[in-house]
Structure formats: structure tokens, C-alpha cells
């Protein structure tokens, strides 16, 4: 088969009517562009959520009071506290696969220092908290177990607090007042920046949970317990053990638990499940538009074949084989769809970059999606171009030459 000539012939034919070629390819361009853009934006959103979940720490299990339905809706969670400090201590004591436990209480309060005041969030945590969260310090140290046991008036502050209340010099060693009680700053947290929801993660003060419960907010129940498992492999075991232990302690049974234990992975999955569904749906819709683009190609190729009946007659008269005519039109169809696919890929990347830029969402162009889209558009050209090409190849030269 004279491949080089066929390509030459096909390109010349497409070149003859550039506008029509472009309009025909438009369906594919839009279809592929849409698929790439949707998948990229979806992947970007997913990666942000995953990063957020990952920033929860390493091998983390979260225990919180209240029940939590499967969709991730928070009804009654963190509500009427049912978790106690004793629960946390029991977990630390009895579940062997657990290497760190941090009971948590939360409140907001106004803090004062250097004559300045600031309203912020006060987290009461255990001494293990920073290692569970894998949150480094930029200065100073974390408070110790001893501080927790002695209900110490010590705290670790976020970068925002440090810059707002202690603009001069290091905040470490200085004092701030929470609810008229002096707390010594022993450490400053490394910056984390804004969360995906737009909250300032550096705007907080961490004190021992005992101090928070006794001195700051007078709570008796815990909001949640952060637990760190020894390794990714032991997480399931740890999760099951914690559930069993708490059921025993709270005298509840499956289905009527007043607490929930979620692993980091499950939280991530729940959060990304919606994103996945959305991406899948959008991708499917874009895929449909790709099919429509293919039908558009077939339509135009059929019209083209009819229009060029005379031309086909000349080619046959001059010595073209039926197969070559078929190959010529099939090539035209494939060239159109592949060109359209390539432009579509570029357009899709461009569109997702634009969305990134305008909305501040990250996008992740997936190479897999690009490769699949490329081959898919080639396939569309092949499938939808076949029938018109075959029709062209079966023309009788005499009839074709006589065609008006």
C-alpha cells in the first residue's frame, strides 16, 4: 500500500477546504477538551482534599462522640460529648498497636499579651498531639506529659498569634493571658497557611487538655481523641480494638454506638467519594459529546464522499484501487479526529489552567487521561469514518464520472 502517497493525498484533500475541516473537527475538539478539563479539575480538587487529609498526620484514627452517617454528614457528631478522659487513657493503656493518643477539647476565647488582644481558637490536646499530626515547631518545644498531669499553664502558639501578639522578639518564654490566667509560651508552630475552606490554620493556641478543661472552658467531656497507630498495616487492627474497647466501656452495641472511630483513609475516601462521582459524571457527559463529535465526522465524511463522487471517479479512472480510495477517506477521517483530539487536549489543558488561575483551585492534568483521549479520538475517526470510506471505495468509475 502506498502509504506516503495516501497521506499526501489525504492532507491535500483536507487542505482544500480548511474551514470545513476545522468545523468537522470541532465536535472532537470540544469533546476531548471537555474530558481533559473535567478530569484535570476533578483530579486537582481531589488532590487538595487528599493533601488536607494527609495533613491530619500519619496513620491517624479519629475517635469522636456522636454518630456519623455514611455520607459524611455530621449530625450529632462532636455534639453531646460522650467521650471521657478515661476512655483516652484506656485506649492508650490497652490497645497495643497504638503509639500516641491525644484527647481534644476546643473552645474560643480572647487572649491578651503585650497590651494587645486577639480572639482565637483554643485547642486542648495531649503531649503526643504534634507528633500525631506531624506538625513541626518553628521555635521552642511542645509541652510535656508532666505539664499535662500537673494541669500546667503552658501553651504552644501558631504563627499568626506569634506575629499578632508578639511582634518583637521571640514569643518563647513570654506570657499570654487566657480568661485572665497567665500561660507561658513554650513553643511556636511552623506555618501551615490557609485550609481549603479558607481558614487560617496558624490562628490557634494549644494548651494541655487538662488545663483547657479545668481552667479555660470547664468541660468534662472530650470533643474527640486523636490516635496514632504504629504503622499503616496495624491501622485496621487498632481501629477494631478501639471500637471493641469503647463498646465495652460505654456498654453499647453495634448500631447503637454513641461514638465513631474513623481512620484517616476512610475520611479521605468519604471526602473524595463525592469528588470522584462528580468527575465521573462530568467525564461521562464529556464522553457523550465525543460520540456526538464522531457522528459529526461521519456525517461530513458522507457528505464529502457524495460531493466528491466525480473526483473519486477520476481517481479510479486514473488507476486508483478501491482499497486506496477507502484508505484515503479513512485517513482523512482519522487525521481530522486526531488533529481535533490534539487541539482538544491543548484546549482542555488551557481551560483547566484558566480555571486554576481564576478560581484558585488547583488542577492536575492526568497523563493517562491525555493518552486515553488521544487514542479515543483516533478510534472515533476510524470507526465513524469507516462507513463513508467503504461507500467511496465501492463506487463504479463510469457512474461516478457521470455524476452531476
Amino acid at each position, binding site marked *: 500500500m502506498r502509504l506516503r*502517497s495516501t497521506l499526501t493525498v489525504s492532507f491535500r484533500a483536507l487542505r*482544500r*477546504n480548511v474551514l470545513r475541516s476545522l468545523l468537522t473537527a470541532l465536535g472532537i475538539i470540544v469533546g476531548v477538551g471537555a474530558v481533559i478539563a473535567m478530569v484535570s479539575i476533578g483530579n486537582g480538587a481531589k488532590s487538595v482534599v487528599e493533601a488536607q487529609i494527609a495533613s491530619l498526620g500519619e496513620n491517624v484514627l479519629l475517635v469522636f462522640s456522636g454518630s456519623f452517617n455514611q455520607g459524611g454528614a455530621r449530625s450529632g457528631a462532636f455534639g453531646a460529648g460522650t467521650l471521657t478522659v478515661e476512655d483516652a487513657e484506656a485506649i492508650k493503656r490497652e490497645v497495643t498497636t497504638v503509639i500516641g493518643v491525644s484527647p481534644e477539647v476546643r473552645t474560643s476565647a480572647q487572649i491578651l499579651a503585650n497590651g494587645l488582644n486577639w480572639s482565637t481558637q483554643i485547642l486542648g490536646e495531649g503531649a503526643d498531639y504534634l507528633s500525631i499530626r506531624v506538625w513541626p515547631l518553628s521555635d521552642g518545644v511542645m509541652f510535656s506529659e508532666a505539664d499535662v498531669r500537673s494541669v500546667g499553664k503552658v501553651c504552644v502558639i501558631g504563627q499568626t498569634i506569634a506575629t499578632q501578639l508578639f511582634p518583637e522578639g521571640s514569643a518563647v518564654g513570654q506570657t499570654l493571658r487566657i480568661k485572665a490566667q497567665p500561660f507561658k509560651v513554650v513553643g511556636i508552630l511552623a506555618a501551615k497557611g490557609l485550609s481549603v475552606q479558607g481558614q487560617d490554620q496558624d490562628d490557634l493556641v494549644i494548651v494541655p487538655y487538662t488545663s483547657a478543661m479545668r481552667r479555660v472552658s470547664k468541660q468534662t467531656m472530650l470533643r474527640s481523641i486523636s490516635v496514632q497507630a504504629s504503622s499503616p498495616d496495624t491501622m485496621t487492627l487498632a481501629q477494631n480494638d478501639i471500637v471493641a474497647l469503647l463498646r465495652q466501656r460505654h456498654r453499647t452495641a453495634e448500631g447503637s454506638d454513641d461514638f465513631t472511630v474513623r481512620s484517616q483513609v476512610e475520611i479521605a475516601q468519604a471526602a473524595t467519594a463525592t469528588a470522584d462521582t462528580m468527575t465521573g459524571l462530568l467525564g461521562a457527559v464529556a464522553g457523550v459529546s465525543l460520540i456526538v463529535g464522531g457522528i459529526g465526522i461521519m456525517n461530513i465524511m458522507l457528505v464529502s464522499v457524495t460531493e466528491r463522487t466525480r473526483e473519486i471517479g*477520476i481517481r479510479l479512472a*486514473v*488507476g486508483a*484501487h478501491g482499497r486506496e480510495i477507502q484508505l484515503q477517506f479513512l485517513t482523512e477521517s482519522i487525521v481530522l479526529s486526531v488533529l481535533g483530539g490534539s487541539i482538544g487536549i491543548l484546549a482542555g489543558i488551557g481551560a483547566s489552567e484558566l480555571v486554576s488561575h481564576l478560581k484558585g483551585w488547583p488542577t492536575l492534568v492526568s497523563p493517562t487521561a491525555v493518552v486515553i483521549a488521544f487514542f479515543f479520538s483516533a478510534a472515533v475517526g476510524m470507526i465513524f469514518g469507516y462507513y463513508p470510506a467503504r461507500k467511496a471505495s465501492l463506487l463504479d468509475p463510469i457512474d461516478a*464520472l457521470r455524476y452531476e
Partner: protein
Amino acid sequence: MSAVVKLEDIHRIYDSGEVKVHAVRGVTLELHKGEFMAVMGASGSGKSTLMNTLGCLDRPTSGRYLLDGVDIAGLDRNELADLRNEKLGFVFQGFNLLARTTALENVELPMLYGRRRISHRDMQERAEHCLEIVGLADRADHFPSQLSGGQQQRVAIARALANNPQVLLADEPTGNLDSKTAIEVMGVFQKLNAEGITIVMVTHELDIAHYCRRNLIMRDGKVVSDIAVTDRLIADEELRKLREAETAAKLTA
């Protein structure tokens, strides 16, 4: 010298269900190299069918056709296509050039379908050469829409020459041209014939037929007359006469 074209008792019957049309009823003829034959006849005389048979575009219902010694009966569709590509050149009444394609690319067309691979440069050279023969070397990059009817037909003739054919088949080549341009085109044919190219032309115009060397007349599917042209017209002379007449008219008008 053996015949380039040999037809032996050719019959062609069209059977389109209802009516059987016996278009060609037993034609036997020979064509030798260098001949210049005109096939004439009224509508329905079978001349188009005969041309289609000669052009290997249609198979006879019965009879034998030998083109340059090759019996076409044993050839399949693709082999016939190759035969057309290598041995024949076609010129049509409606020129049938590819639109929005340069004259040069139009002439290259038969070479693209040749069995032998020709390099891009060789193709271009040969195409330019063919355009030179018909006197259009300076219009190689023009599109058909930029050429007059006569020029388009000459490009078509150049295309027919691309693969150095044995026989040039022309179907009413001057049908769409005015009388002066028609003579110019006949001049090209005569020039080619003088260089040894065999030409078969269908025409219904008597004066055009007189530019050829042999006249075949068909009626009802049979050859009723096959004679050599006696009072042959020479294109160059006729053009000169025409120019003189025009000048004379301008002088007196």
C-alpha cells in the same frame, strides 16, 4: 507492427432488470501505434460504451479486448486499474480537474497511483515536463478557477500524459470549448500525435473529426464506416486563417 488496441467481436448488453440494452453489437477493430482516430455517432450509437470498454472502465459482455497485447478478460478490478494507470490517459469533456488543487498537483495525480514508487522530485519534474508539452509551464501553480476552459483542458491533457501512456482516450474534449479554443486544443492533440502518441477521440462534430487521421462512424451499436481522413485540417493553419479573418474584419469594420 502489432496493434496497440485489438477488439474482437465486442458485445455489450446492459441488463437493468426491465429492459435489455444491446449497446454494442459486434465491433471488431484494430488500432496501431501512432494512429489518430475519431469515433462518431448519434446519441445511443454505442460510441460512449465503446470508449468505456477501450478505457478498461467497463467489461464487454462477450468478445475479446487486447490492450498492448494483454487480454483484459483475465484481469480483476485492481489489475484493470493498474492497466489504466500505466497504459491509458483520459481526457474528458468537462475537464474533470481537482478543484482548489494546482495544475502541477493535478498533473501529478496519475503518478500518485502508480505501482512504482516515484520520488517527490521526480514526480514534480515529470509534471512540469508534461505542462511544458502542452504549453502551460508558466501556470503550474495556478488553480483551475484561475485558468480558462482551453487551459484547463490542456492541463487535463498534461495529466493524461503523466505516466507516458500507450493510448490517449478523449471523450468529446472540445465539447465545452468555443470554436477557436477547440482548434487550439486540437492543435495540441495533433502535436502529440506527430510525436507518436496514439489517440482515440469521441466527437459528434464533423469538423473536429477532420483534424484526426481516421474516422469511425457508429450507428445502433455497429461500425458503419471506418475510413481514413482525406481532407485533413491542420490546427495551426486553421488558426492562422482565423486570425487573418479577424484582422481583415477589424480593418474593414
